[in-house]
């Protein structure tokens, strides 16, 4: 499984970025090979639609799960359409979050914000 995490710094022991779409980097962690790859977020400087493009970056990395503190509607739509699981990050480093996910201690983000996709019903 590949896990994506928005990051401000390129180290496993730094914390998760508060911004999904505008985070400068994404950590892509492969749970099988235990490999960590940091990629640049080409969406971070977007004029608009950063969330959509950022979700596209995650999707193109073939990630299976995303850990993030929050997420906008559009990005959530892209990720959900691609069956990428979205988890809410906890305090601590990227590594702590990966371990928490593997221990099944992370909650799904959509369960925390049920109103997140209400615009679909408009």
């Amino acid at each position: 499984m590949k896990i994506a995490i928005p990051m401000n710094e390129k180290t496993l022991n730094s914390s998760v970025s508060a911004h999904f779409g505008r985070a400068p980097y994404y950590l892509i962690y492969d749970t099988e090979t235990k490999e960590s790859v940091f990629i640049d977020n080409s969406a971070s400087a977007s004029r608009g639609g950063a969330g959509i493009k950022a979700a596209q970056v995650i999707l193109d990395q073939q990630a299976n799960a995303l850990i993030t503190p929050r997420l906008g509607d559009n990005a959530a739509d892209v990720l959900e359409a691609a069956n990428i699981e979205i988890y809410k990050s906890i305090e601590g480093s990227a590594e702590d979050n990966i371990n928490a996910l593997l221990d099944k201690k992370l909650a799904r983000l959509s369960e925390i914000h049920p109103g997140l996709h209400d615009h679909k019903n408009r």
Partner: protein
Amino acid sequence: MTTKTDKMKIAILSGKGGTGKTLLSVNLAAVAQKASYIDCDIEEPNGHLFFKPENLTEEVVTVKIPQVNPALCNACRQCVEFCRFNALAFIMDRPIVFEEVCHSCGGCSLVCPQNAISEKDKGIGLIQKGQSEQVSVYTGILNIGEASGIPIIKRLLTMEQEEPSPLTIIDSPPGSACNVMESIEDADYCILVAEPTLFGAHNLSMVYDLVTLFKKPFGVVLNKCLEEENPAEKFCEEKEIKILYRIPFDQELGLLNSNAEIAVRKSEKYRALFASLLDIVIQEINHETNSHS
């Protein structure tokens, strides 16, 4: 009372909301013999609350949105790469359109080598037209959640052109962003409304920069004037900006306005005030056009 008007378009602007744009716009239109009032503040139009126009007609304003034919799409992603607004995502081997992010440029359908993208109409809001005594009232209403009301403003202004009045008053959106630029584009003259505060002066400087950039003739109306120091007035003096009028801070006027009454239709005193303001503006416009012709 007012001098002859000859197809003049006046836009009323301010750097922030609540300075008195609508107060001024509504009363200037109502005091003129025959006028059009165009509410370009499409995110929160409120001029109609004053005019209470009758014989309303409605027109839906649409924009073009791409529509992908999956049978023709060869998954080349050129449309997704092209869109600078990221309104297209590539999911499960096909492009998905995010309508509310789309700016309707049509580029995706042009770059598609398969002709798999066509365009469909999407309503983003509507225009209401009605009559209030001698004033034709045009109201633009942007649907909640839509990114841009520019197409509605464009349509409002062209619609008025189809039945032009001798005097057109354009009630601009607050601020100095794209919506405002669109609303003043065809204006012959701009009136900047400012409050007597530091914040008011700051916001005035923003719209001052805008009308200067657009090379529009303009003047300032100072609203809610008190005896004390007026930073907006000071700004005008520093920049040598024409002050058209000083509307005093006036509870009676404020009360009429907050009850959605048109002051010039309720009181002879305010009819005289706004009539003389309109006279000054028209003289100023005539002066500007003569000195530039």
